[in-house]
């Protein structure tokens, strides 16, 4: 009896470590195949490291007015005849080192971008899960709100929220509050895409039998959603999050450029570009050029990573 139930032994179950499984995966293979992706990943990692180590790498603290010398203002980059050490990329009108300002600005831009994406993804995933799983009126309500939101451009919504919050809280706000407002407004303007994508995936997943099996043992909907369905809808979310990170950084830069974002005392890349913009015609090109270049490279590399991730996670496109 016992032997009749036994099937042939299954291939020896050597438990592969997480790392070696990743090295064996299709994602890693497709990463290694694409040179462009590797370069983009290299640049993105470089930017992130630079932002993290900004305090160590930069010769001065650009947020500390005490360290700024007006004597050093408007110095050109170091390779120019008038350039001075340690101001690698020159200085602005307050004597702030552009290189240090970019490193610190990068940190703020990335922080706003990542926090904004995290906020919008959390909101969007939660609403998408609920709409897709419960359906009916809940679904209609959430998705109609999403439809209405889609008719407004993200930047307009961000401006609107920014304006409302500022008028409610009144007058001058400290940099920390402004940062939160930016994260909040970017989060609110990007959630729709997550909600729609997640809802679509949930509609497919909830009819699969592993969900039926979970219902059979009487698990509550919240458990089924979080433990069973959520892990199976994260693939597309990851792609959107990567591409949205670039978008969020750009949105923050636009808001700061328009003057509703980070203040000059704690500049992000967008603020730096706005400041530099004023000096473009008086010949101090470096004040605007280097922050713009940094922003462009950051956004481009993240976008390339997002494109690759989308292709790698969706074999049908290959």
């Amino acid at each position, binding site marked *: 009896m016992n032997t009749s139930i036994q*099937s042939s032994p*299954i291939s020896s*179950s050597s438990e592969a470590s997480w790392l070696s499984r990743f090295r064996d995966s299709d994602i890693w293979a497709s990463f290694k195949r694409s040179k462009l992706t590797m370069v983009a990943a290299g640049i993105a990692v470089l930017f992130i490291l630079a932002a993290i180590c900004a305090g160590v790498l930069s010769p001065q603290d650009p947020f500390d007015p005490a360290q700024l010398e007006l004597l050093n203002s408007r110095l050109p980059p170091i390779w120019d005849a008038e350039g001075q050490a340690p101001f690698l990329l020159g200085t602005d009108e307050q004597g702030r080192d552009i290189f240090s300002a970019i490193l610190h600005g990068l940190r703020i831009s990335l922080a706003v971008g990542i926090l904004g994406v995290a906020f919008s993804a959390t909101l969007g995933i939660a609403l998408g899960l609920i709409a897709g799983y419960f359906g009916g009126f809940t679904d209609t309500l959430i998705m109609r709100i999403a439809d209405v939101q889609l008719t407004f451009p993200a930047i307009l919504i961000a401006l609107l929220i920014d304006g409302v919050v500022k008028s409610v809280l009144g007058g001058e706000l400290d940099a920390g509050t402004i940062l939160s407002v930016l994260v909040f407004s970017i989060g609110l303007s990007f959630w729709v895409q997550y909600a729609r994508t997640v809802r679509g995936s949930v509609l497919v997943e909830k009819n*699969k*039998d*592993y969900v*039926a*099996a979970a219902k*059979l*043992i009487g698990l509550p909907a919240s458990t089924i959603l979080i433990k069973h369905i959520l892990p199976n809808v994260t693939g597309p979310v990851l792609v959107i999050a990567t591409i949205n990170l670039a978008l969020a950084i750009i949105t923050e830069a636009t808001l700061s450029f328009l003057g509703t974002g980070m203040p000059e005392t704690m500049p992000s890349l967008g603020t730096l570009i706005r400041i530099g913009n004023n000096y473009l015609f008086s010949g101090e090109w470096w004040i605007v050029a280097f922050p713009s270049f940094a922003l462009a490279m950051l956004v481009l590399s993240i976008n390339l990573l997002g494109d690759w991730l989308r292709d790698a996670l969706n074999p049908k496109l290959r």
Partner: protein
Amino acid sequence: MTDSHYVDVRDLRRVFEVSKPWLNRILEGGDRQFLKAVDGISFQIAKGETFALVGESGSGKSTVARMVVGLLPPSGGEVRIDNVPMVGRASSTERQRLRRRIQMIFQDPYASLNPRWRVAEIVAEPIRAFALIDGERDIKARVGELLSLVGLHPADGAKFPHEFSGGQRQRVAIARALASNAEFIVCDEPTSALDVSVQAQILNLMRDLQDRLGLTYLFISHNLAVVRHMASRIGVMYLGRLVEISGGRELFSSPKHPYTRMLLDAVPDLDMTSRQRLPVSGEIPNPINPPSGCTFNPRCPFTNERCRAEVPLLRDGVACHAIHEGRLSPLAAA
């Protein structure tokens, strides 16, 4: 309650609305449309028995399965298991206690196991949900025991479902169904996604487990040969109704209903190489707009006026006017 009524299904009905959306109906006209997927089905299953429902696509057999386990609320009728009603009156603790005893094996082993979970976690989930065993070590031991029971290795628990073949996944699904010490297992086309040699392994395993654990099966399939091999009693469904219900051997040796006869004649079978078949005619009608009277009447060679007007009731194990009136006698055993 006797053991012969362990599972008692009475007059089970299920209607699906298939109307166009509300706004389209207002603008384009048209009434609400309903599909009677299951239309008044009754049967009993004795403890330790295998009862099978066979039918082609659209017969409503899978809908019955989902109502019996409680995944789908019936539009009418009643399902009682061990005298506890599945819907309505039972308290939630009573129903949770019942849930532990009823499990299901699904058709597609690629969709019935969560691809992101390790097999050990999948099998352990019912144990945790019903708090059957305390302590991680004991749960792990029980999972290993269950995996061995279905012919896998306890170490396979560390793998993900995609590392297994279809047959092995179906074994995992069976282990999960057994994890809560279930007594009654509803099997919805458990082998139709598998290759024949693997199908044989799974069918043998299911029979061995039944012998060993005294399981009761409701076996849903479109494959007559598989049903014949597995079931002690069989119900034949056509367009949401039971047209015939009889003992396993009897159904194949002396089928009564004209539809059953047609099906038996249509199955390509190994032992009937190059035989001449009786011509089979027509296809299953659209269930949204089924024929009046007996739904099989447009394809039936024995149709008369009454068949077109009046729905035959299941009597003496068959729902057919021609048999009831004596116009048609059951096929003699060959």
